[in-house]
């Protein structure tokens, strides 16, 4: 594991309460917000939480567990089968954890570019799963995809600031 570290990096952590409240609140908001706000259908709060904690902990194995856990819970709350969100978030969490070793994530621009890229990968992976495995004829809307990336990055801008208040050096 030590070999993967390319440069001295600071590892942060949050309290268990913060972590569970964040995860729970993200899943809860994801189920309630779209009922009240049409824009919320573009937002994926659990994905942002997954990315945030994966970046924070800089641990690929725990990131995989986190992504899979949050994704499966999101699958369980959705109307579809269990698995697509789990797989997509597992992949994105691993990517985020890998990137946290490679690039300076204290730089806000880099951080939000990474979030945008992760949202893009997540959406494309979900599209691929739905078309390839689940044989759902979901239309591909590039404009929707671009909007989703922008909206999630904008939300991440606020959410990460809030969550940063609860982090401390491990």
């Amino acid at each position, binding site marked *: *594991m030590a*070999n*993967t570290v390319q440069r001295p990096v600071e590892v942060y952590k949050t309290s268990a309460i913060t972590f569970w409240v964040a995860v*729970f609140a993200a*899943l*809860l*908001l994801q*189920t*309630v917000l779209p*009922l*009240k706000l049409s824009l919320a259908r573009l937002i994926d709060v659990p994905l942002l939480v997954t990315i945030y904690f994966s970046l924070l902990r800089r641990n*690929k*194995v725990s990131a*995989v*567990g986190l*992504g*899979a856990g949050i*994704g*499966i*819970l999101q*699958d*369980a*709350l959705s109307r579809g*089968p*269990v*698995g*697509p969100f*789990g*797989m997509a978030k*597992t*992949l994105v969490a*691993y990517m985020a*954890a890998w990137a946290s070793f490679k690039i300076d994530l204290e730089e806000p621009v880099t951080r939000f570019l990474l979030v945008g890229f992760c949202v893009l990968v997540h959406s494309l992976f979900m599209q691929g*799963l739905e078309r390839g*495995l*689940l044989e759902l004829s979901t239309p591909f809307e590039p404009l929707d995809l671009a909007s989703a990336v922008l909206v999630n990055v904008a939300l991440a801008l606020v959410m990460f600031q809030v969550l940063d208040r609860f982090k401390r050096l491990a």
Partner: protein
Amino acid sequence: MSSLNLPHLDRPVQAREGPERVGAFVRRHGPFFVLLGALAAQLMLLSLQVSRNHNVRWIKLWTVMAFRPFQDSLHTTVDRTSQVWTRLHGLWGAERENQRLRVAIVTARAQVQELSQRAAEAERLRGLLDFKTRLPFPVVPAEVIASSPGEGSNAIFIDKGSRASLTTDLGVITPEGIVGKIIAVFPYSSQVLLITDPSSGVGCTLEKSRVQGVLKGDGRSLCQLHYVMNEEGVSPNDQIVTSGLDQIYPKGLPVGRVARVSGGSIYKSILVRPAAALDRLETVLVCLKPVPVEQQAARLPPR
């Protein structure tokens, strides 16, 4: 170290390095294998549900049961908050609409007032025009632009003067009755002495009895008819018209009505209420002198 004592382990170095290298590779890329494992496990779970219709309802059931109370609470909270917000927004909107409507009402009232004034003016001008067309002598319409300054002022200014061919001693009338006569003429205005001024004098006739007299103002809002003998029959509300003898007002124009009558030593004391509303004059007609036929012929352009 022990391999030196164990012949079966005494193999070439390359052969011994193989498993170590594999172990090192696995250790080095352990997280990646964890990722692959997690993805494979979820893919299998997904395949079970899709291809074999395997039910994983328990995962959904537990999750939904765990989240439901919180979803209910959050939904209720969001619902109530949005209701409160909607009401507040509605109140705010109502307040703004109220203000807008108040302004609209004030504007509408002003418009109604203006339109009423215009309608009244139009009505008045129509009456004046109608009156003018019925008159057997030429008239010039004029607007009252001012009254003479001073308390108990019995003179007004009109907006026509010498440029409109006005001269002094021309009678000024309204459809209701006579107003006064021009006492001063300027290029674009004239001063009119009202019949209520004590220095004015109008030759009058009592319409019913045809008795003649001279009307003079009392300095306030009424007039007095002089030189009517005590034995003449005059009663209140009798109509008084111009006699035409003063060479100012054409004959037969309404002057006013008898307000009060009482006997005197020789002449009756007759108080007259003017027919024209002298305190709210706006538009008047100036009676021009009829042009003699000879003068009219002289004014015609030469052929």
